[in-house]
C-alpha cells in the first residue's frame, strides 16, 4: 500500500535504524541536554514564560506609574523608560517569538507531520541553549552598572547610545549582544523547522494535508529567517558605533554642549533596518497564532475549517506582502514623503487576506456543533481582539490618519490588542488544548474558565478605552502627562481605571500558573485524544509521546486534517491516518 503513496520520505536520520538515538541513557540527556524536540519545546516555552512573567511584573510597574503618578517613588523617569523598553523587548522577541516558534513549533511540527523528530536534533538543542544564553544576557543587563537600556524597544539611534538615555554604559551593549545571540540561536532552529517541514513529512502528508498550524509556523519561520538578518545588521552596526566609535547611524552631534566625535551617519538607516525586521516580526508572531486558532476552532466546532485553500493562500500572501510594508512605521519619520503613497497602499492591501482569514474563522462556526471548551473560548476571544486590533490597524496604515495618531496611546492600544493580547490568548488556548498531550492530564477547566473571563474581559477593558486617550493626543512613552493643556483630568481617572484592571488581569495569570503546576499531578487523566481531534499528534501510540514519537512504524496519512462531521461516518471525526474510505463527496 505504501508503494502507492509516494510522499516525501525522510532521510536516513528519521528512520529508527539507529534504535539508540531515541533511547536517551541518562537523566541529563533526557531532560537537560535533550535532543528530543518535545523536551526542547518545553524548555523553550518554560524559559519564555518565565521571562514573560518578568515582563508582566514590569508592566505592573508601568501601570502603577501611569495610573497613579507619584505613588511609586522608586520609579523615576529613567526607571520608567527602562521598564517600558524591557517590557516591550521581552514580550515581542523573547516571549512571543520564542513561544510560537521554539515552543509550539518544536512540539507540533514533528508530531503533526508524523516525523520522529526534527531533522537535526543536535542543532535543535544548541538553538535552545543559545536562546537561554540570550535571555541570561538580557537579564544580566538588569544588574549591570547603569541598569538596562531605556531607549524604547525600537532602540532608535543616536538616542540609544548617548548619555541622555538610561542604560548607556552597559544596558544597550548587553541588549544588542543578547539580540545577536537570539538571532544566531533562532537561525539554527529556523533552518531546522524549514528542512523538517520540507523533508520529514510522513508518507501521504502532502503540503495541502498539513494542518494550518504547521502552515502558519512554517511560513513564519521563513519570514523570520529573512527578517532577522536586518535586525542583526542593525545591532552589529550599532555595537560598532557604541564600542568602536564608527558613525553608521551617528550624524554630527552636540551633547550637553560638547561636540561628539561622530559625524555623517544616518539615523533613518537604522529605522529602515529595524522595521524591515520589525514588520515581518508582527507576522512572525501572528501567522502561527492564525494557524493555531484555525485548528482550535475547527476541532471544537466539530467542523472543517471553512475555505482551507483560501486560508493557505492567505498565509502565503500575507507572508510575501509583509516584506513590502515596513515603512508604514515611518510615515512621520522624515523619510521621503512620497514613499507614503506606496506603503499605505501595500499596507491596506495586506488587510484583504487578513480579513479573509477572519471571515473564514467565523464561517467555520456557522452550522457547527460548538463546544465551548476553554481552548475554544480563548480562540473566540482571539477573534474579537484580533478583529478589533486589525481594524484599528487600518487607521494607522492609512498614511494620513497615522499622522495625528502615531506615537500616541492609540498606537499602544492598537499593537497591544493585535499582537499582545490576541497572540497571548492563542498561547493560552494552545496550552489548554495541547497540555493533555504534553502531560497526559487535563488542565482544570473551572480554573481555566475563571482565568479566561478575567483575562479576556480585563484585557479588553484595558486596551479598548486606551485608544481614546490616543485620540485625545496623549503621547506614548510619557512618564507623566501632568500640565498638558489638552489632557483633561478625566483622562487621569481613565488611566487609574486601566491600571486597576491591569493589576487584576496580571494577578489572574498566577491562577494560570497554579493550574499549570497543579494539574501536572492532580489533573484528570486525559487519554490519547481527549478532544477527539483528527490531526496526527493526537494519534500517537502513547501519551505523552516518547522520544521518537511513533513506536516502530511511522503513521501513513490518508486524508486532510479537517475531516470533522463527515456525512456517513460513524463518528464526528476521522483521524488523518485512518484509511477507510468513508466519504460521500464534497460539501454543498
Amino acid at each position, binding site marked *: 500500500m505504501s508503494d502507492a503513496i*509516494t*510522499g*516525501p520520505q525522510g*532521510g536516513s*536520520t528519521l528512520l529508527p535504524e539507529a534504535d539508540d538515538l531515541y533511547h536517551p541513557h541518562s537523566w541529563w540527556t533526557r531532560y537537560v541536554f535533550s535532543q528530543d524536540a518535545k523536551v526542547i519545546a518545553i524548555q523553550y516555552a518554560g524559559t519564555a514564560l518565565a521571562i514573560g512573567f518578568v515582563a508582566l511584573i514590569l508592566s505592573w510597574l508601568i501601570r502603577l506609574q501611569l495610573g497613579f503618578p507619584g505613588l511609586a517613588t522608586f520609579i523615576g523617569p529613567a526607571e520608567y523608560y527602562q521598564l517600558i523598553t524591557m517590557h516591550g523587548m521581552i514580550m515581542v522577541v523573547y516571549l512571543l517569538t520564542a513561544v510560537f516558534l521554539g515552543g509550539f513549533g518544536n512540539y507540533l511540527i514533528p508530531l503533526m507531520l508524523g516525523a520522529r523528530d526534527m*531533522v*537535526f536534533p543536535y542543532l535543535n538543542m544548541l538553538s535552545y541553549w543559545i536562546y537561554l544564553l540570550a535571555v541570561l544576557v538580557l537579564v544580566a543587563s538588569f544588574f549591570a552598572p547603569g541598569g538596562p537600556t531605556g531607549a524604547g524597544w525600537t532602540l532608535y539611534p543616536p538616542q540609544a547610545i548617548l548619555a541622555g538615555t538610561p542604560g548607556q554604559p552597559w544596558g544597550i551593549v548587553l541588549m544588542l549582544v543578547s539580540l545577536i545571540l537570539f538571532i544566531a540561536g533562532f*537561525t539554527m532552529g*529556523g*533552518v*531546522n523547522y*524549514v*528542512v523538517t517541514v520540507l*523533508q*520529514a513529512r510522513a508518507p*501521504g502528508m*502532502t*503540503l*495541502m*494535508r498539513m494542518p494550518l498550524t504547521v502552515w502558519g509556523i512554517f511560513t513564519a519561520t*521563513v519570514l523570520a*529567517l*529573512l527578517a532577522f*538578518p*536586518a535586525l*542583526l*545588521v542593525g545591532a*552589529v552596526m550599532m555595537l*560598532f558605533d557604541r564600542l*568602536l*566609535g*564608527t*558613525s*553608521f547611524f551617528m550624524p*554630527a552631534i552636540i551633547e550637553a554642549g560638547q561636540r561628539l*566625535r561622530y*559625524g*555623517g*551617519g*544616518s539615523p533613518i*538607516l537604522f529605522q*529602515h*533596518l529595524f522595521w*524591515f525586521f520589525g514588520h515581518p516580526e508582527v507576522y512572525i508572531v501572528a501567522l502561527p497564532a492564525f494557524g493555531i486558532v484555525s485548528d482550535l476552532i475547527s476541532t471544537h466546532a466539530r467542523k*472543517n475549517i471553512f475555505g*482551507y*485553500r483560501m486560508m*493557505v493562500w492567505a498565509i*502565503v500572501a500575507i507572508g*510575501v506582502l509583509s*516584506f*513590502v510594508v515596513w515603512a508604514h512605521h515611518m510615515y512621520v519619520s522624515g523619510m521621503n514623503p512620497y514613499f507614503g503613497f506606496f506603503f499605505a497602499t501595500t499596507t491596506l492591501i495586506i488587510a484583504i487576506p487578513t480579513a479573509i482569514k477572519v471571515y473564514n474563522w467565523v464561517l467555520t462556526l456557522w452550522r457547527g456543533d460548538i463546544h465551548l471548551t476553554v481552548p475554544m473560548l480563548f480562540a473566540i476571544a482571539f477573534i474579537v481582539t484580533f478583529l478589533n486590533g486589525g481594524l484599528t490597524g487600518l487607521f494607522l496604515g492609512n498614511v494620513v490618519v497615522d499622522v495625528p495618531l502615531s506615537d500616541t496611546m492609540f498606537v499602544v492600544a492598537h499593537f497591544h490588542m493585535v499582537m499582545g493580547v490576541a497572540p497571548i490568548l492563542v498561547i493560552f488556548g494552545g496550552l489548554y488544548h495541547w497540555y493533555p498531550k504534553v502531560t497526559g492530564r487535563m488542565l482544570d477547566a473551572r480554573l481555566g474558565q475563571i482565568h479566561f473571563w478575567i483575562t479576556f474581559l480585563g484585557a479588553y477593558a484595558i486596551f479598548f478605552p486606551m485608544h481614546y486617550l490616543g485620540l485625545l493626543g496623549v503621547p506614548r512613552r510619557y512618564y507623566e502627562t501632568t500640565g498638558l493643556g489638552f489632557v483633561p483630568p478625566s483622562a487621569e481617572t481613565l488611566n487609574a481605571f486601566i491600571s486597576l484592571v491591569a493589576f487584576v488581569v496580571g494577578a489572574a495569570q498566577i491562577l494560570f500558573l497554579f493550574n499549570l503546576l497543579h494539574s501536572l499531578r492532580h489533573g484528570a487523566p486525559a487519554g490519547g485524544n481527549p478532544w477527539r481531534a483528527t490531526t496526527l499528534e493526537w494519534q500517537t501510540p502513547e501519551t505523552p509521546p516518547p522520544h521518537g514519537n511513533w513506536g516502530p512504524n511511522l503513521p501513513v496519512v*490518508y*486524508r*486532510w486534517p*479537517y475531516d470533522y462531521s463527515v456525512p456517513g461516518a460513524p463518528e464526528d471525526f476521522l483521524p488523518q491516518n485512518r484509511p477507510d*474510505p468513508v*466519504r460521500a463527496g*464534497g*460539501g454543498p
Partner: protein
Amino acid sequence: MSLVLAYLAVLGAVAARWLARQHLADRPWLAVGSPHPLGAAAAPPSPARLALGVFLASAGLLFSLLVAAYAMRVPRTALVPLEPRLLWLTTSLLGGASLALHRAHAAALRGREEDVTAALGFAMAAGLGFLGGQALAWRALWQAGLAQGPDGAAAFFCLITTLHGLHILAGLVVLAWMTVRAARLPRTKGPEPGIALCTLYWDALLVVWLVLFGLLFRTPWSGLIDALCRPG
C-alpha cells in the same frame, strides 16, 4: 533597498516555482487515500544540503542588507582609503581556496585520498591567509583612524570584513574538523557529502566577497554592482 527587494524577488521566484509544483489548488478533502505523487521526488537534496541552502539564503539577505545600507549611507564618490593590492591578494586566496575544494571534491569522487587531504590542507591554508590579509587591512585602517571618518566607507569595510570573516572562520572550523575526521577515521562511505557542502559554502562566500569587494573598491565589475544597488 532596491538590491534587497531584488534579492527577495529572486528568492520569491524560487519559492513560487517550488510552490507551483505542490498542488496548492487541490481540494484536499476530495482526495482520500493515496495522494498523487509529488512531482520529481526522484532525487530530493539531502537534508544537510537543503539546510545549507536555507542558511545561505538567509545569510545572503544579511549581506545584501549590508550592501543596501552602504548605498544609503556612503556617498557614491567615497572609496575605502586603502591600497587595493593587498585585497587583490586576499581575493585570489579566497578564490584559490574555492578551487582547491573543487579539486578535493573531484579527487574524493575518484577515491584518491592523498589528493583529498592535500587539497583540503591547501584550502585551509588559503582560507587562513585570506583572514590574515583581511585582518592586516582592518588594522591599517584602524590605526590611521580612518574607520571613524564621516563618509563611512572605511567603517563599512571593517564591518563587512568582520561579518564576512566570521562566516569564513566558521567554515574553516568545519573544514578542519572534516579534515581531521577524514584523516583519522577509516573511510566508510567517503566524505564526499561533507566536502560537497563545504565547496558550496565557500563558493557562496566567494561570490558574496566579490560583490562586496566590487562595492568597496574600484574593480572591473564595480560599475555593475553600483548600477544594481543605486539605480537612477
